């Protein structure tokens, strides 16, 4: 008589001691493989007398199913254990530790401020134009209503080149070329580097950046100028800015203004930067002089517009709290790289 219970008991004991999937495969072969113990029992079937066949068959099948089930459970157990082990073995990585890789490169502060201002103007519909650094006397002076012998030429000490050209003293030098290129209506800004023959000190550079803007159309008015300057400067400083106009004399505009802004540092309350006045003189602007329009090929009886010149170097200095304008052209990487890339 075959003791099925004993076989099952032995098998289960054996199974309990199995710790690897390989051993489990061997166990499977040992019991359920082609020459396995259970398979062998099934082969005995034909030798069993008919009246016992039924019981024997049930018992063998039962044994086979139980062992199969046990193997399957064991497999499941191994699969789960593998995942659990993998989870347990995963290293905790401390992301709160500072990482070392830093961008050591940097853009020049002017580049960063310029990019910001350009994007503001693009969103307001101004195209961006490029100007030369070396200009003809005509473009720099005559074309912006500063004729020869005009005392305004004394106001700006100009670098002259030996072919008679000049290092442009203001971005306005590009006005004429741009008006001739596009005609009216026109909305454009043109950033650029300007040069004045000045002694260097903490607040004076002979080489500095400006951005010039022009807007010309049939009905562009002083009221529009105030609106645009206020909105644009609010964007530049990232906070609500008040503007006010004072008379200012610049030959290329009529009327000409000095534009003051409410001090962005103290919101006009008075501080060191605005010398307690609450206002900062920021940029000259005005309605484009009819002569300038005419020389640019635009009919002043039909079109009018405004222009302004914003000091980029000044803006960058305000933005980064730079107190020495000379730093900008110094090539001092340690200092300049503080600007980073945005």
């Amino acid at each position, binding site marked *: 008589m075959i003791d099925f219970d004993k076989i099952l008991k032995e098998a289960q004991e054996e199974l309990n001691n199995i710790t690897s999937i390989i051993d489990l495969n061997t166990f499977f072969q040992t019991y359920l493989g082609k020459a396995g113990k259970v398979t062998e029992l099934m082969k005995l079937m034909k030798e069993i007398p008919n009246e016992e066949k039924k019981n024997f068959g049930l018992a063998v099948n039962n044994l086979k199913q139980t062992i199969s089930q046990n193997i399957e459970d064991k497999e499941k157990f191994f699969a789960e254990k593998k995942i659990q082990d993998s989870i347990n073995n995963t290293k905790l990585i401390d992301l709160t530790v500072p990482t070392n890789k830093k961008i050591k490169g940097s853009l020049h502060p002017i580049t960063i401020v310029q990019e910001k201002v350009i994007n503001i103007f693009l969103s307001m519909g101004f195209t961006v134009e490029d100007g030369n650094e070396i200009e003809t006397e005509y473009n720099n002076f005559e074309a912006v209503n500063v004729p020869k012998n005009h005392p305004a030429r004394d106001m700006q000490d100009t670098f002259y080149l030996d072919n008679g050209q000049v290092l442009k003293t203001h971005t306005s030098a590009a006005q004429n070329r741009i008006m001739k290129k596009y005609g009216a209506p026109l909305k454009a800004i043109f950033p650029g580097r300007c040069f004045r023959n000045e002694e260097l000190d903490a607040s004076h550079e002979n080489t500095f950046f400006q951005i010039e803007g022009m807007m010309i159309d049939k009905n562009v008015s002083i009221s529009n100028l105030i609106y645009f300057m206020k909105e644009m400067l609010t964007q530049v400083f990232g906070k609500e800015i008040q503007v006010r106009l004072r008379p200012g004399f610049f*030959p290329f505009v009529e009327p000409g203004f000095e534009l003051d802004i409410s001090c962005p540092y103290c919101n006009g309350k008075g501080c060191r930067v605005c010398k307690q006045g609450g206002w900062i003189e920021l940029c000259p602007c005005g309605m484009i002089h009819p002569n300038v329009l005419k020389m640019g090929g635009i009919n002043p009886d039909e079109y009018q517009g405004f222009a302004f010149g914003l000091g980029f170097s000044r803006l960058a200095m305000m933005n980064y709290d730079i107190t020495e304008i000379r730093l900008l052209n110094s*090539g001092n990487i340690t200092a300049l790289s503080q600007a980073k890339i945005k």
Partner: protein
Amino acid sequence: MKVSINWIKDFIDLNGINIEEVISKFTMSVAEVETIEYKGKDISGVITAKIIDVEDVPNSKKLHLLKVDTGSEILQIVCGAPNVRKGLVTALANIGAKLGEIKISKAKLAGIESFGMCCGGDEIGINDDHSGIVELHEDTPLGVDIKQILDIEDIIFEIDNKSLTNRPDLWGHYGIAREISALTGRRLKPLLIENIDNINSQNEIEVKVLSKFCNRYTTASMENITTKNSSLNMQIRLFYCGMRAINLLADVTNYVMLELGQPMHAFDNNLVKNIQVYDIKEDTCFKTLDSIDRNLQKGSMIIASNNTPIALAGIMGGENSEITNATTSVLIESANFDAYKVRTTATKLGMRTEASARYEKSLDPELTLTALLRYIYLIKEQDKGAKISSKITDSYINKYPQIEISISKEYIDKYVGIDIKEATILSILQNLEFKLLENKNGIFKFAVPSFRATKDINGKADLVEEITRIYGYDNITPKSIEQPVKPALLDNAIKLEYDTKLTLAERFDLNETHSYIWYDLACNNLLNINPTSVIRCVNSINKENDKIRSTMIPSLLKVIIDNKNHFNEIGTFEIGRVVKNLKEDNLVDERKSLGLVLYNKDNELEKTLLKLKEILNYLFEYIYKLDMFLILTEPNISYYHPKNYYKIMINENEIGDIFTLHINSSEKIKENCTVVGFEIDFSKLVNIKCNEVKFEKISKYPTTKLDFSFLIPKNCLYKDIIGYAKTINTNLNYKVSLLDIYDNENDELKTYTLHYEVNSLERTLTSQDIENFHTAVINKFKENDIEIKL
């Protein structure tokens, strides 16, 4: 320019008006006021008093013991001034008086008690004279607060001269008063001048104007002038406004100038009898009244008497005809000279005077007669005995045309953007002395007053300025334009510039710097380099640094030098302007140039050059989207190393170069250091059409990978090899890339391993296909004498 409120009050009644508000309005509507000074506020307790007795103080050379009558008591005062004398009425600071920081208390000098102090002009702030005590008129009542006798109290505000460049009319108090009148609505009083009908002398001064730069010359003479000094109150005004008292005749010229903006000159009439105005024909030496010999260049305009120069027209008088203590008769010049002529002469001589500063603003010639009559009036007021001793000679040669401007309310409203009432427009302009000639069909026709017509006001826009500035810019409501605002597109060239910079900084850790457009000679000398330049600046600040650069590299090398002590490695770049050529019309061919330099303190040539190449590749592949290749050649720049110099090419165009700094220069930076870089003609680059990315069909059949190693002569470049590798005779799809380079110094040849990926769009490749492709590659290289490595 300094403005005295007391003086302004001569012309306008400012009673009941806050002066600070007026000054603030002036800034907002006329010109920027820079400072406000409150004169005399810190002076108190000073009274008039008469010296009635003077005794020497024993044992003191300087001190005197005075008895001083204050009207109510006699005080004992010790005083060190040399001009003390019996009968002198002076300013006495009582005990408890304040003179600025100083508080007067009882004091002992040389052992003698003093009950107060007699004051010098500097002590009460009315001049800078410390040589003696104040001398008041003998009839001055005693014991009266000095402020009731002298105009010590005043408010002085200073206007930024630059903001008056275009306003010749604002270079005198009367013009300033006219603006304040328009701002406050108070009436401007007429100027008190000599009645021209009172002048009945038959004497005539002969005036010959021979220079075309003299627009008008007005003159007259006076005699019997015995008063030597101007009144203290006149002196105070001159002093407060930045001038010094000299003598009566000179002081009044200055006074009239500060009042009307018209410079004047007083000649001693004994020395000057007639007047010629001409441009000198040859260089002449002339002593101006500041006792300096000036070399006048030919062409300078002068005033002469009997053909002897007596004044430099519009700038300064001569010593030979100046007013002295002995002068009792005067010849007065009130003239109008050409602005440019005065300016150029003054600039050449390096002498900018109060007079020349005014003339160069284009003064109104109408002023000369008014100024002359004002001068006569003031002299007569200061010296009752003075008499006019000639007719007025008035040579008025060049008159400015009267300017008339027509403007409509519609135009004004369109220009300003708001609705300004007609009555407001008319009253503003009329207050500024514009004359309304006509008001018809909504069009106003105005005559521009002569004092605004020399250059300032020409057209409608100028009138808009007049209206709006007085109306108040703060009263203009901001308004957006009527047209809808559409965002604009950024020009590709400008975008590429920023993208380049950002990539270099962000991806390759380079630092952007800015440099000057001229070479730094000291730096070039240090590096022993002499870069080319085709144009120079004729008035550079530093005479040595006058050459405009034709390459960015020297500027960047300076950055390396300036920073090398702080870093082991430096990478810096700049997109700046260079001039390599002049164009046919002799104008510069200005170009944008990207310069980039890498520095390593050690000899790391290969590593540094490869980093450079990686940067270059990245820019061209991902930013510019252009196929770039390099050509090895020899540099024609002496400070570049003869080896490893490549031209950067796009198609047939040379667009830049890669260099290693010559050891002659690099060792000046640091021994054994590495300096490499490249420069790209950015203006050229941005105009080359970039590759467009088009998607290719991707084969769904398997790809076969094949590697080939070729033995290549050492002087043969990758760009040639890849050229062969990409032109295989096959109809299969393939891609090729460089897998490896083996280059042993000792071997004759180097090995390049190429990696091919081959497939077909139509089918799976057969072994025959692969075989054929393999043969085609080998054949291609064989044709070019390159063997496969077995």
